[in-house]
């Protein structure tokens, strides 16, 4: 792990439960990390959410996406553009980026690279 990714992990792990996927989308999911969903869903809640809003897999945990949807609408200081991005269709995770710094990948644009066959209109 590079110095940058170690620093990123040190900052984001305690606050967001960061899993170091290397392609951070926190800003478009109400500052709620979708990689903490047991199914690592990037595009919204599964159909198994319990009546009390808790996770199908971990009954003691509130559904990550129930939080994300609520927070994207209510978090103060979140720019309008970021609030709207919750409805974007996010591309599949690039598993090669796991453990790398999403800060670096943001600067280089590496985190925006999608498979050649990923439909352009799939970006939402």
């Amino acid at each position: 792990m590079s110095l940058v990714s170690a620093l990123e992990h040190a900052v984001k792990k305690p606050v967001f439960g960061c899993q170091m996927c290397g392609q951070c989308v926190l800003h478009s999911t109400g500052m709620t990390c979708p990689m903490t969903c047991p199914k690592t869903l990037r595009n919204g809640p599964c159909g198994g959410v319990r009546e009390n809003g808790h996770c199908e897999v971990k009954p003691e945990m509130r559904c990550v996406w129930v939080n994300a949807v609520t927070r994207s609408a209510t978090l103060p200081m979140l720019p309008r553009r970021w609030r709207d991005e919750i409805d974007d269709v996010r591309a599949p995770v690039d598993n090669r980026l796991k453990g790398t710094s999403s800060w670096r990948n943001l600067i280089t644009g590496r985190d925006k690279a999608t498979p050649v066959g990923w439909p352009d209109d799939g970006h939402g």
Partner: protein
Amino acid sequence: MADRLRDKIERGQLVVTAEMPVIDGGGIDDVRYQLAFMAEYLDAVNATDNAAAHAHCSPLALSLAIKQCGMEPIMQLVCRDRNRLALQAEIVGAAMHGITNVCCLTGDDVTAGDEPEARRVFDLDSIQLVAMANAIAAGTYLSGRTITPAPDLFIGAVENPGAPPYDYRVRRAFKKVRAGARYLQLQISFEAERLDAFMAEAVATGLAEKAAILPSILLVRGAGALKFVNANVPGIVVPADMIARVEAAADQQQACEDEAFALARRALDTPGVAGLHLISFRRDAGIAALCRRLEVGTRSERESRGDHHLLRV
């Protein structure tokens, strides 16, 4: 008729689909036996993909068997058990055999099944799976490598009006439609008000015009099964008063049929609903009896009437 499901949905005709009971042993004879109870009422039959996270005959093999029995299959695919390579292979392999209806789901977690120690995959989510199937239908794998000719897929998905966050469900369904889904088979719902609210928003936002929405109705034999579903199937709530009504009935199976009929009737009469998806745990003629009571007609009766259930643009 080839592509019956697509043809009817595009014409706005009433569509009735059902779930094939899971198949383990028994071969194609068992598939034929199960279909015989309901085939004449159905436009297409869903082949599930390790339903409820229990291993069964694979959806591609089951779809082939359904086709051999003269019915049109809808091959379900879930994200739980396969990575993107395996999912693409399955879609292209199914298309080779003329199986082009693909319904994309997230899938129950492994912990809902009888092998909770298995590794869960979820390399893609259901929306990404829809988008990937759409890319295949447009002639490329996810890598960009071309498929010539492109398989003519008819892609669907699922949404659950009965699970939180309730006010996000139509927006999530819209994501699936934007990714390429043309029909949505809803999760079983015993809560009519939840379905009403979902459909009202689906009509108001235009979702119901962009995709055919098929609410699901579940037939069971008694209060025990309703309690089991309520306790064990993720994302489905059976209201306590419904369980109490069935429990108090002299004939519980009849009471379950009455409840299913009431839910199905109400769903069919709800604006924006394009048809029904029927699921039975009974392994008998329950689905046919429900269709007769609903007066939806057999498939050939519906086709000879040629009536338009809804107008879709």
